[in-house]
């Protein structure tokens, strides 16, 4: 994705970033070093501390501890300078639902110092580029989810920022809208914008991000490229559903033999789940099931889900298992903090 580490300068450099709400350590000692011109993915479940981190980095929330430099400026001491260079698209609409798309963009343009005419031209240019021209005069609250996201991102780049924060830009969008947002992000990055995006989907981080940090309970528990991350988690999971529940035990036994891994039997009496280390073994295993005359209604090999990444990284039983199997690759990923 563009030239990485273009000149080795950092867009974000954070050390020991902390935010505590009462007893709740929402962000608990986060270190970041994000080079300019790259896309950094923040992957974590609900309540992990993604939004809190992003809000601190975007000058909306004061960190309790830690030192942060954004594009060379001190986050707390030089907030105004930072605000000139960064832009945020929040998790929940950060445009005014009561105004039309056009009015929203003109408002931001005027606040940034464009003349009435310039603001209007820029608004029109962005609405056209984002496929929102026809909806320009409608109130944003009547937009669809995908349109809302797009107008929100458009509002963030009325003046293109050097650093853009996108907080869960595609959560709740259908696949087509999600692809549109991904396209926009890719074009933005190709024009030199550094992007920090948060997401709950490994696939999204995989698609867009140069590097990914996995965050849980306010701590970064793993960091690396998506390749490194997947190597530590395994290739994914094989999900199989048998037609006849009485055959499940037999099928499970066969799969264990063929895949050389432990099998999980979920509460669904038809389902079998296997953590796969090598995808090639799967074809064989499925052939064996057919030979044994075990009928399947469904099978799929999924990319590791966030759940699985977490199960692996946060020290549940699966973790030890994978560690032994993929001991070599795991070393790429530096683990941080206490797990479990």
């Amino acid at each position, binding site marked *: 994705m563009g030239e990485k580490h273009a000149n080795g300068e950092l867009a974000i450099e954070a050390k020991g970033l902390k935010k505590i709400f009462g007893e709740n350590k929402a962000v608990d000692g986060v270190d970041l070093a994000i080079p300019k011109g790259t896309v950094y993915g923040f992957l974590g479940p609900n309540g992990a501390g993604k939004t809190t981190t992003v809000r601190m980095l975007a000058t909306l929330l004061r960190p309790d501890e830690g030192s942060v430099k954004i594009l060379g400026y001190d986050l707390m001491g030089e907030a105004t300078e930072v605000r000139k260079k960064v832009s945020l698209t929040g998790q929940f609409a950060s445009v005014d639902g009561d105004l039309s798309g056009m009015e929203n963009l003109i408002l931001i343009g005027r606040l940034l110092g464009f*003349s009435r005419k310039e603001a209007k031209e820029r608004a029109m240019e962005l609405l056209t580029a984002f496929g929102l021209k026809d909806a320009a005069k409608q109130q944003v609250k009547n937009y669809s989810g995908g349109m809302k996201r797009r107008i929100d991102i458009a509002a963030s780049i009325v003046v*293109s920022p050097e650093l853009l924060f996108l907080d869960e830009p595609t959560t709740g969008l259908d696949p087509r809208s999600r692809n549109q947002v991904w396209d926009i992000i890719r074009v933005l990055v190709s024009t030199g914008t550094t992007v920090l995006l948060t997401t709950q989907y490994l696939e999204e981080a995989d698609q867009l991000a140069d590097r990914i940090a996995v965050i849980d309970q306010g701590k970064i528990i793993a960091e690396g490229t998506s390749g490194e991350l997947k190597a530590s988690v395994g290739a994914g999971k094989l999900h199989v559903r048998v037609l006849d529940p009485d055959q499940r035990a037999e099928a499970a036994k066969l799969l264990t033999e063929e895949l050389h891994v432990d099998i999980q039997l979920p509460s669904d009496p038809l389902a079998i789940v296997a953590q796969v280390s090598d995808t090639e073994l799967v074809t064989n295993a499925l052939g064996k099931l057919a030979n044994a005359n075990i009928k399947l209604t469904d099978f799929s090999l999924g990319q590791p889900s966030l759940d699985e990444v977490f199960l692996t990284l946060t020290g549940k039983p699966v973790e030890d298992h994978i560690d032994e199997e993929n001991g070599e690759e795991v070393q790429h990923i530096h683990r941080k903090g206490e797990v479990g």
Partner: protein
Amino acid sequence: MNHNLDTENKLEVDEAMISALSSRERPVKPNGISTSLTFGWRALLKIKYVPEQMLDVTAFPIMFLLMFTYLFGGAIAGSTSDYLQFLLPGILAMTVVTITMYTGMELNNDIRKGVFDRFRSLPIWGPSVLVGMLLVDTVRYSLASAIMITLGFIMGFRPDGGLVGVLLGVGLLLLFSFSLSWIWTTLGLILRSEKSLMGVSMLVLFPLTFVSNVFVDPRTLPSWLEAFVEVNPISLLVTATRGLMHGTATIEEISWVLLASVIIIGIFAPFTMYLYRKK
């Protein structure tokens, strides 16, 4: 149908998009007055979409004036026309002061929206969001005043201070209301819901406006109540406004109102901004 939608919404990653996204032009940072006016424009746009929100500054004043003039006029002053000369400046002040509380409710409502995160992350003079809002509110208060004075004139209000006196009276009232609005913005940021804000505002405004010299001459009151009425800032405001409209105001009366306004802004504007930044 589906197909149609698809083509309509399809995003083309083409030259236009790339050029729109790669524009790096950064205009000169605008000053605080300009950004405040832009936020004022935002407030006006909202009125365009929800014109009903003008009811409080149009219907309210008319209702108040008719109600109190004809309800109390005969009983208190013997004749409604005499009473109107005394009542109108007071009821005008009371109405406008009551309307100010909507400012807090509006902010309380607005601030919850995600768009405030964006405003706060822009490189602009922080208070301009609120100043813009209050400026438009001041326009609303002027409208309420104009409606009330016009209706009053039709009903027989003939101020001795003439047009100049009336305008000066309204000006003083607007200044005081602008300062009072900062109390409501502070509360609007502290209180969690519009309902609780309404409750607190009523609790403050009801006694302050009624236990004042709006309706009756305080000399007719028991002495302990008279003491309260005398120091009540609303009474000070009403005395000065009434004085200006009838051409009898003293420097002292006016100074009290100016002083009260400055003190209120001095305390509550910074307090509001502190809460706003911390939010």
